[in-house]
């Protein structure tokens, strides 16, 4: 991490680079070479099992590592990180046009954009998998998939890509990289190279998991439960490797953003003035920094058990050992997903109501306490494997965690109370998100009760619950933020009527589908099955129709946003009259945010008077 400090204006150190082939093409080429070398080395030289195929699960692991390194070096790490680290001058020129998105860049806005595109691609790839699953479930028999294993692999791909490339990433790596430096009045993130590398790991992870069926099916789902994983064909190897790439990506971003928020703040941006979104990102990042390495080591153990193979989690240790270490991470993970979403509510509502954020300190406390509690509740995922007397503390803490979560609601409600709220698309989506999360939260508290949990465990009630929290809260908030910040990203405004239509569309379709997930669960619909009792077919059929409507709704919103990004009406620099700093600069990717460093004068959420929030200080002499 040494010598990666942000100093984007040292032009004199820039040398013109040699001409190279397009970095992405070079990355693919080097990836192929890396794979070839390491795979051959392992399968043909070191491990010469007679009659073994060219690609074994041992060799593919090393081949994958070689490919990933080749890819990262090819898209720019060679010039931007490795050579300078060994004392060569930096020769990396990022053209100021579309090409900058196809190479490694140090500009936090470019990186943010790259992350958003990768992450949203992951969402639609995994969404496609969901559509296919729902197609299968329209009929009680097996018909849309060749085998039950194929269905289960698809569920796993869906869950894994959704969680690790979208749920964990979009609000942190995407919006976070783009907006956090702006919101705290900085020209750069703290360690731009770290985010530069991490962005390019994300597509690796998505593609690896999506291609896992090339190695064979896997039936464990996103949790990779061992020793079940050891019994499957080899697809699970690509699950571990892909998740490794994606979690490393998120870990690196979190380190960078944490340092950015703590160290890159503008003058006058004191602790009690830190923007809400920055608080949300800080809380999520700290969780990432603790728990992602934890799950990575767990997955390394499981991967090694699989490819060597070793008898871990089976003859040595137990399946419960795995569940324990998985859910230690697994529960904090859900807060990694949802805490930034809460922060978005508190970012958008005061602006839309032009009213001071209500009880701001309690909002922050809520985020922080949720973060701290989240490590104490993991075993509520394992009630079916516990003795009664072990359940109580976990049940208790799980229900307690709803209290700080409630703060997020109260702060939001207090803010809109008696405000002259503009019912724009972002506002609407925030309200929908709150409504959905209420259902997600209430069903969560129900599930925290062992009596209910033991009845509904592994049914669609659980699936309904967590989709209400994840889609309901996180995806809806993500959409709210997408519309809210569209003018900031693109300089253009969306169409309000189409925006509202899109919001209502997904809201109706979402509740139609997932509300009935809950009911299906109560009627005895198991999760993890492509085949189910005939009496559930009617409702499943209908759920699938709503699910397709939902898929189309997301597509509609995507097209609307992409269209308006390019063709929308030019927007004012600060169309919502927000006080936060990201609106006080109109810099586009490739441009400096604040030519003269801003000095913050008051908090950002006080709309009771019109005094300026910041002033520009004289530009620093660039020597």
């Amino acid at each position, binding site marked *: *991490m*040494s010598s*990666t*400090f942000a100093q*984007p*204006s*040292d032009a004199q*150190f*820039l040398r013109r680079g040699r001409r190279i082939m397009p970095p992405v093409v070079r990355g693919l080429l080097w990836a192929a070479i890396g794979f070839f070398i390491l795979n051959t080395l392992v399968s043909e030289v070191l491990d010469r099992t007679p009659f073994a195929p060219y690609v074994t699960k041992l060799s593919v692991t090393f081949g994958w590592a070689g490919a990933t390194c080749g890819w990262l070096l090819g898209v720019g790490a060679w010039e*931007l990180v490795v050579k*300078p680290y*060994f*004392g*060569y*001058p*930096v*020769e*990396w*020129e*990022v053209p100021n046009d579309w090409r900058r998105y196809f190479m490694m*860049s*140090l*500009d936090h806005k470019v990186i943010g954009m790259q992350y958003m595109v990768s992450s949203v691609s992951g969402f639609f790839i995994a969404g496609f998998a969901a559509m296919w699953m729902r197609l299968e479930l329209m009929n009680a028999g097996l018909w849309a998939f060749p085998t039950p294993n194929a269905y289960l692999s698809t569920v796993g791909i869906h869950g894994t890509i959704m969680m690790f490339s979208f749920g964990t990433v979009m609000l942190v790596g995407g919006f976070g990289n783009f907006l956090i430096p702006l919101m705290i009045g900085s020209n750069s993130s703290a360690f731009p190279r770290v985010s530069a590398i991490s962005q390019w790991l994300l597509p690796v992870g998505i593609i690896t998991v999506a291609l896992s069926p090339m190695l064979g099916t896997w039936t464990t789902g996103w949790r990779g439960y061992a020793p079940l994983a050891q019994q499957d064909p080899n697809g699970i190897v690509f699950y571990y490797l892909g998740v490794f790439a994606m979690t490393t990506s998120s870990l690196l971003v979190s*380190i960078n953003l*944490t*340092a950015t928020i703590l*160290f*890159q703040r503008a003058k006058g941006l004191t602790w009690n003035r830190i923007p809400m979104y920055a608080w949300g990102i800080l809380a999520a990042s700290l969780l990432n*920094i603790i728990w*992602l*390495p*934890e799950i990575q*080591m*767990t997955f*390394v153990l499981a991967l*090694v058990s699989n490819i*060597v193979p*070793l008898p*871990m989690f089976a003859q*040595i*240790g137990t399946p419960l050992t795995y569940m324990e*270490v998985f859910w230690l991470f697994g529960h904090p993970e859900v807060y990694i997903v949802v805490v930034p979403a809460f922060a978005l509510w508190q970012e958008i509502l005061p602006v839309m109501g032009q009213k001071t954020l209500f009880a701001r300190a309690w909002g922050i406390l809520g985020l922080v306490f949720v973060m701290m509690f989240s490590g104490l509740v993991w075993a509520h995922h394992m009630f079916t494997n516990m003795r009664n007397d072990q359940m109580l503390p976990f049940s208790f803490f799980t229900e307690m965690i709803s209290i700080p979560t409630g703060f997020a609601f109260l702060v939001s409600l207090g803010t809109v109370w008696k405000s002259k709220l503009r019912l724009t698309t972002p506002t609407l989506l925030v309200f929908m998100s709150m409504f959905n999360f209420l259902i997600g939260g209430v069903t969560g508290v129900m599930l925290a009760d062992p009596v209910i949990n033991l009845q509904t465990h592994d049914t669609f009630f659980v699936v309904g619950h967590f989709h209400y929290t994840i889609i309901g809260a996180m995806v809806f908030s993500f959409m709210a933020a997408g519309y809210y910040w569209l003018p900031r990203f*693109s*300089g253009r405004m969306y169409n309000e009527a189409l925006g509202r239509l899109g919001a209502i569309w997904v809201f109706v379709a979402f509740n139609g589908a997932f509300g009935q997930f809950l009911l299906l669960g109560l009627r005895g619909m198991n999760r993890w099955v492509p085949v189910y009792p005939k009496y559930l077919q009617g409702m499943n059929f209908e759920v699938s129709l709503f699910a397709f409507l939902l898929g189309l709704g997301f597509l509609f919103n995507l097209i609307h946003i992409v269209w308006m990004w390019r063709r929308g009406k*030019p*927007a*004012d*620099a600060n169309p919502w009259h927000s006080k936060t700093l990201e609106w*006080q*600069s*109109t*810099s*586009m990717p490739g*441009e*400096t945010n*604040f*030519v*003269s460093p801003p000095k913050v004068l008051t908090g950002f959420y006080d709309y009771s008077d019109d005094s*300026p929030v910041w002033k*520009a200080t004289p530009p620093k002499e660039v020597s």
Partner: protein
Amino acid sequence: MADEFAIVEDHEIQSATSRTHKPLVETHHRAVLELSNREWRLGNFGNALYVISQAIPYFVLMNVRWMMAGSYVPADVSRWLGGLWPTIFLALGILFTWIGVGAIRAGKPGTLQWTFLVSALLGVAAIVTLFVPLRIHSWDVMSHFGSIYVVCLGVAIFYTTLTTIVVLGVVFRTAAGLIGPKTTFGPHSAAIMWTFNAIAWFALYVTLDLV
């Protein structure tokens, strides 16, 4: 695209920003510049986050060692290879790297270079002594102790390789004249990384072999 913004706010500077289209120069060679105090603290904070996040895998390993294998140690496991040798090499490296850091602060790049070179060699020695028992050993890989032990050796090899490369980078950058008495952050961080790696391995070794 910035030109399409209508300027609504009257902050003078802001309009200037949006109009000038100043391209952001994306590369630099910061290593030859002095760091401000704040940048030092930022850099050290980055180091701290690296150490904290990477200590966690080691905690998991220690934990799993107890969960899966209790405190059992087979009688035929070598105390030296995959045990004391790498511990000694890494411990010596702590000494050498920090002597190097002290030397460059006193303006002696030559000393920095050879101490870090020695550390890199110690790193290689540690890797070798970790690798040999991974390939040649009398204990059973499929046993409780054996399966944890191979994973621990692998993890230690991985981190030691990374650390050795980082230390080697300092040698090269010093040779290129990029590290001097006022620009010591690189060697300083490399020494921190080395120290972390040595302590982490030692902790692992203690959990594996001694306790």
